């Protein structure tokens, strides 16, 4: 209490000073925990919680007002998302159209040798693009532009907790990504005869892993992004890494074993493996748990990193 503390940033990062220092107070620890299930908690529609999130005890009592605040913020963010034509185009067009331009390349791979069929491969490619472009890059640009417009700072003067601000902003892109994935599943079943998933219970965990990790990494990426223009650059590493290594552009099944096992540790690999596994039915219990644990680890690491590095105000 009496100790002298120093704002770590150029004025903007007061909040992080306390959070980085150690979870001494319950409120803070709790809000961080809810940040973990960005996108899953607030909607109230799915009713599914990521085990990682851990809604702290205090959160339950405050759930109704918290849900009301999240809804208000998400509604405004949805309107903003709809008014940003560039983001809408990328979010809708890329995941739905690009995978099909990649079909010729996929046709030349020895998919059958890896026990894969073209339908599920294209479907997971499309869903992967949805994670990357409907959720991740859209959300990086949303966080950055809200910060630069001082919206985040203004929101922090109100009743919303930090976790609610991040979650409410994330809800529209996350729900868009979820809707897109479900449309893709239905569309591919109809057009590419992918049929029903062989292990349907893996689909939802897979989608949630992808959506949550994408949202959490978007918050982290935005911490290191100064302007919305530079967001187009800072978002690229994860986009490229995921396309190449997480089985989005090409299935990890066709990679050499050693490389594949390293790539399985990338942030979006678990989500893609689980979704693909739900169609192929080839994922063992051990592999399933491994994928869930990897997604969980990435979520936890991102949440801690966001609490440490997220910037609520522009650098001046």
């Amino acid at each position: 209490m009496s100790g002298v503390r120093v704002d770590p940033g150029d004025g903007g990062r007061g909040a992080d000073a306390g959070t980085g220092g150690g979870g001494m107070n319950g409120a803070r620890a709790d809000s961080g925990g809810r940040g973990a299930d960005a996108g899953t908690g607030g909607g109230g529609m799915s009713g599914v919680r990521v085990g990682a999130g851990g809604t702290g005890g205090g959160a339950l009592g405050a759930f109704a007002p918290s849900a009301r605040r999240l809804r208000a913020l998400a509604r405004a963010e949805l309107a903003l998302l709809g008014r940003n034509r560039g983001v809408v185009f990328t979010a809708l067009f890329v995941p739905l159209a690009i995978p099909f331009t990649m079909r010729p390349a996929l046709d030349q791979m020895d998919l059958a040798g890896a026990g894969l069929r073209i339908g599920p491969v294209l479907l997971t490619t499309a869903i992967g693009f949805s994670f990357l472009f409907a959720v991740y890059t859209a959300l990086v640009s949303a966080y950055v532009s809200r910060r630069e417009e001082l919206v985040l700072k203004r929101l922090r003067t109100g009743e919303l907790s930090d976790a609610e601000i991040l979650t409410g902003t994330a809800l529209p892109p996350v729900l868009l990504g979820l809707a897109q994935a479900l449309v893709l599943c239905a569309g591919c079943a109809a057009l590419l005869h992918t049929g029903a998933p062989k292990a349907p219970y893996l689909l939802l965990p897979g989608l949630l892993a992808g959506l949550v990790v994408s949202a959490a990494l978007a918050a982290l990426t935005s911490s290191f992004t100064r302007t919305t223009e530079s967001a187009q650059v800072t978002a690229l590493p994860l986009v490229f890494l995921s396309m190449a290594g997480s089985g989005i552009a090409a299935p990890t099944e066709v990679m050499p074993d050693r490389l594949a096992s390293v790539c399985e540790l990338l942030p979006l690999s678990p989500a893609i493996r689980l979704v693909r596994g739900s169609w192929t039915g080839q994922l063992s219990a051990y592999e399933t748990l491994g994928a869930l644990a990897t997604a969980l680890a990435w979520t936890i690491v991102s949440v801690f990193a966001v609490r440490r590095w997220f910037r609520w105000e522009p650098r001046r």
Partner: protein
Amino acid sequence: MDIDEHEHVIEVTDLRRVYGGGFEAVRGISFSVARGEIFALLGTNGAGKTSTVELLEGLAAPAGGRVRVLGHDPYLERAAVRPRTGVMLQEGGFPAELTVAETARMWAGCTSGARPEAEVLARVGLAGKHGVRVKQLSGGERRRLDLALALLGDPEVLFLDEPTTGLDAEGRRDTWALVRELRAAGTTVLLTTHYLEEAEGLANRLAILHEGRIAVSGTPAEVTAGRPSRMSFELPDGYFVGDLPSLPDLGVCGHESDGRFVRLRTTELQRTATAVLNWAERAGVELRGLDVRSASLEEAFLGIAQEQGVAA
């Protein structure tokens, strides 16, 4: 929650704020604001007004000292304080692409016990602007939207960081009237401003900040007490300052003159003015540009800036 805490709605003790680069923006200030009071923080740009208010709003943790708002630490006990405070930052903070009504609806959804949005927007004169995007509002309209949102939850304590900057004269008067209404209703207001007339006209008490410290504080009368009054005029051709009656005998404590234009500072304004005007009458001359004014906050403000500047 004893009564004592409610006497002083805001309590600041030896508050300090240090930025990352080591710059100490707030260097140990203390003051308290009673319920229903309007307290103004005055100062030049860079005096530490906004740095201080942000600590009171709970946006950052102090480097040292203590802040209590309604008996709570506004930074660590955010959930306890926020439902009872309203904040208007120095600069906007609203998405440019939302309309006025959408912005207000969003804030209402995030505010417990929010008043109807239309009522609050009407109160700040934005009734006709519901469908206008924030980016199309003028600077003054944006300030008023900001004020409306700060008022949405009927706050007990209102923080206004330069509420009238960017407003035209009429908008400024409207805002002042609104702040007086709020005071009448018992709201405690802490405002920063660099308009001296604003502080003089609104504040029950004020503090003038200079380089992160409180240079002087008290009621406007207390702050201006002991400050010299001012009399200025132009001497007609052929007359010089030496022709005037003996200045020290009239209570004049200082004067400036370029030979023609004379500015007197006096602790006895009536005596000085009478003597000078009688002299002009007898000499049969006209004093052009005659201006006589009692000690104002401006005098105090400028005096402090000069004194401190010399001391530093």
